[in-house]
């Protein structure tokens, strides 16, 4: 499931909470600008083992119809999923 994304907005003084505890996801916005390489899933080779899902430090991989799917709005391009993938179903490709 993809996270809820808020509209880009300017926060007023009143919008900002007193302490660092607030409704989850409210402050979240797309965060993937520094990615130089991106993981690409070969669905033919993917066996649906979910290892990439478990290892992804940003939690951007989900399993859909038994195959890994990547949320590029939040993927930082670290390549851990490609390293961990035993059937070599994930390759890293240059961003253009």
């Amino acid at each position, binding site marked *: 499931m993809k996270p809820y994304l808020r509209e880009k907005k300017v926060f007023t003084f009143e919008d900002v909470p007193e302490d660092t505890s607030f409704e989850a996801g409210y*402050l979240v916005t797309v965060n993937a600008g520094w990615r130089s390489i991106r993981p690409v899933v070969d669905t033919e080779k993917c066996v649906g083992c979910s290892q990439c899902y478990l290892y992804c430090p940003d939690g951007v991989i989900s399993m859909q119809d038994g195959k890994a799917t990547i949320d590029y709005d939040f993927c930082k391009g670290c390549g851990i999923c490609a390293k961990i993938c035993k059937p070599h179903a994930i390759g890293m490709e240059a961003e253009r």
Partner: protein
Amino acid sequence: MAEKFLSGDEAFAEGIRLACPEVISAYPITPQTIVVERLSEMVEDGSLDAEFIHVESEHSALSCAMGASATGVRAFTATSSQGLLYMAECLYYASGGRFPIVMMNANRSTALPWNIYGDQRDSLSQLDSGWIQAYAENAQEALDFALMSYYIAEHKTVSTPFMVNLDGFILTHTYEQVDVPTPEQAKAFLPPYETENRLDLDNPKNMAFSAGPDTNYIFKYKEHAGMLRSVPVITEAEKKFAEIFGRQYTGLIDTYLTEDADYILITLGTIAGLSREIADQLRSQGIKAGVLRIRYMRPFPTEEIADAVKNAKAIAVLEKDISFGNEGAVFTNVNSALKSQGVTAPTYNFIGGLGGRNISHTNIIDIFEKIRKGTERVNFIGIEVNQ
């Protein structure tokens, strides 16, 4: 109430038992050790119903207290010197997260050269960490701060962590007669801790998050405003405290004969007691001397100090601290306060007691003598230096 013969550390532990924290996490360090030893004994014998967590470092001690506070419970830790510096990173986390943890710090010198004796360089180096900072003068005040600190820190309008400082050895290890209140009195004074700033399964939230340049500044402003809102809460707490326990405290500062004084010594912590003795002695010789003890370094008593010293001819600031390359941090703060309030009397800094060196009776007489004649801006008492 019961009269007991207690050291400063023991009195503070008694105060914490009365405040009933649910989690205590601490690492022992001289001269704070007795506080956590007594508290662990209280947990062991069942007289304090708390989790006592033995941690592997001060960094963990405060991290652990923060985790506890984030579940909505009252948390306590204690440290000193190198321990305070080791947990420095976490000090800012706790204040930025607005977790109203109470910490006792036994004021002790910082290395190198290694030294376990008292000075105030540890806590004064952390004035900007966002913690309320109070300085106790005697064991009774230490116990009373233990109770009042939670009242002030946890107040809904404040929500700011609170550091209570006790002069190492001079206060932590000196025995005095202390009035220990009953648990019923403590319960009547201190309400249970209630907060929305906690992990809650029924109302899941994002906690202790990051905030970018658009909002971070607003969080910092609100942290500052929360600290300033502690000023009326300190007054409120002291009023309620006096009603229940019969001891009235005097807010951010404590003055002695300052109303008509020509020469005023400003200081903090235990040395104020001896300073008042000297003021009496000088008064008997016709010299109008007075003493102002700073009880709270944060929030800083800008108007209170200026108002108390506005008619003085000369002012001394005595502190066990130096900001190398400048002057004592208390002196800097006092001068800024006086300038902002239009007080123009000359001020002189006296640095002493570093590494536990005794500040004597004659040293204090000498301070008053020097400010009457005029002296260097920054003076190092008790050592001969070629400046």
